[in-house]
């Protein structure tokens, strides 16, 4: 097969591939399913990644490696030390840098021939349509319900496919929303869960490699969409169970009554997604409980004075093993049936890792009639910061 326009090595051409590119992508080109035609499709494709974290890492790396001509990276966060356990685009030297910029540098190093654009911004109803319009495919690698609905709605309004991936602990979901005739996110989930009802990931954590696998599947689906090959996941929800190491598939249908993509659309512009998801302000979790508090310094002072305080630890056993204040351990989920272990005549200080779960515990116990109970403000993390730095943070 004769190649098309061959330009001198190192120069860019959208009609053909340079000699360098031909060499770089040789493993694609020798596949009849890709070939020059397929590689040119990749070169001319424009993909926007929403989120450059656990899912965004393999996504960005594999799409850049494959030669997707233009990649946009949307993320307003900075690289945190705890990200390095799974966000493999970043290195130790990137801690503190804006993620979109650190990812842009990494991907440009991997493939200097493609265009990588960093958008260090929060995705909002005000900017989504403008941001999306210059791209062909949107890939959703975010971690909260308001943004997932925002991405979905913007994609449906603009007619762009939305390659969706999400994870929880050991499970992942992947599908493609927004294809012509296909379902959208609202067809599957017309309403978000009220805050606090879906278990938070705080106690959950995640094995770093799980978003690595799920994000790679998203990258594969994106490449298949660009090439037009294989059978993509439109209309199918792929469920991945890492513990069983198995995949299951579920049929997804377009809901004819869907308010967004159905026959009689009732939503024709982007809304306030935080309000839709019942969330106020920046928090994705339930609003802060107002309970009586004690600071770690106060606790330390009173313990040193020999006061008889009962420390209640509402974390999980494996957290207790990491570090503890020698408190009495009753995991939050077990508190209702183990409340008899507590003496309401004693002064109780409840703590957890950061102060959220213990606030719930204090609220629960006060409603159960306990009067002498307070929450340790900031949890064991704050204890480490303010009282005893030898206590590890996690």
């Amino acid at each position, binding site marked *: 097969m004769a190649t098309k326009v061959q330009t001198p090595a190192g120069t860019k051409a959208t009609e053909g591939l340079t000699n360098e590119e031909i060499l770089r992508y040789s493993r694609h080109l020798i596949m009849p399913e890709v070939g020059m035609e397929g590689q040119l499709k990749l070169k001319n494709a424009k993909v926007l990644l929403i989120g450059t974290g656990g*899912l965004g890492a393999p996504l960005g790396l594999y799409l850049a490696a494959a030669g997707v001509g233009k990649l946009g990276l949307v993320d307003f966060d900075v690289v945190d030390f705890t990200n390095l356990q799974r*966000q493999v685009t970043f290195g130790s030297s990137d801690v503190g840098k804006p993620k979109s910029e650190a990812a842009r540098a990494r991907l440009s190093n991997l493939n200097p021939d493609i265009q990588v654009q960093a958008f260090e911004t929060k995705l909002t109803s005000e900017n989504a349509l403008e941001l999306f319009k210059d791209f062909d495919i949107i890939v959703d690698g975010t971690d909260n319900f308001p943004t*997932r609905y925002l991405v979905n709605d913007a994609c449906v309004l603009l007619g762009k496919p939305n390659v969706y991936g999400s*994870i929880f602990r050991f499970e992942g979901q992947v599908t493609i929303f927004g294809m012509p005739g296909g379902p959208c996110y609202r067809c599957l989930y017309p309403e978000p869960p009220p805050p606090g009802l879906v*278990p938070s*990931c705080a106690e959950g954590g995640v094995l770093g490699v799980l978003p690595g696998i799920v994000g790679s599947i998203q990258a594969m689906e994106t490449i298949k969409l660009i090439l037009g090959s294989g059978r993509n996941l439109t209309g199918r929800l792929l469920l991945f169970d890492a513990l069983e190491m198995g995949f299951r598939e579920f049929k997804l249908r377009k809901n004819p009554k869907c308010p967004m993509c159905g026959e009689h659309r009732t939503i024709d512009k982007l809304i306030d997604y935080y309000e839709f998801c019942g969330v106020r302000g920046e928090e994705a979790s339930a609003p802060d409980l107002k309970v009586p508090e004690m600071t770690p310094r106060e606790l330390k002072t009173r313990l040193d004075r020999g006061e008889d305080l009962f420390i209640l630890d509402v974390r999980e056993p494996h957290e207790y093993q990491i570090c503890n204040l020698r408190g009495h351990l009753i995991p939050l989920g077990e508190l209702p049936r183990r409340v008899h272990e507590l003496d309401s005549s004693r002064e109780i200080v409840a703590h957890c890792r950061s102060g959220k779960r213990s606030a719930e515990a204090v609220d629960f116990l006060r409603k159960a009639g306990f009067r002498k109970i307070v929450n340790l403000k900031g949890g064991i993390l704050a204890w480490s910061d303010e009282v005893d730095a030898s206590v590890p943070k996690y």
Partner: protein
Amino acid sequence: MAVKVLIPPPLRPHAGGRAAAEFAAKNVEEALGQLTSEFAGLKRHLFTEEGRLRSFVNVYVNGEDIRYLAQEKTPTKDGDTINIIPSIAGGAAPENGAPLRSG
């Protein structure tokens, strides 16, 4: 051989950590009713106070969404599998209460 109900990871803490349970049930309503009788903590995660299935939970019988079959009256027989799929949003594991971040 009864009807197998698979419990998704986000709901397992409310089912004593179980990943699956089996019941003799003629339809989805019976199966889920028995499930929430055995694991009371699951009830509010699956059903509204009025007893309707929550809309962010999807139920499949043998891979088909019950919304396109007979909803809760979708018949089940021995050997069938019911999957419960709640919506999950994680792209990573954000801290409880931390600002919304990327996945």
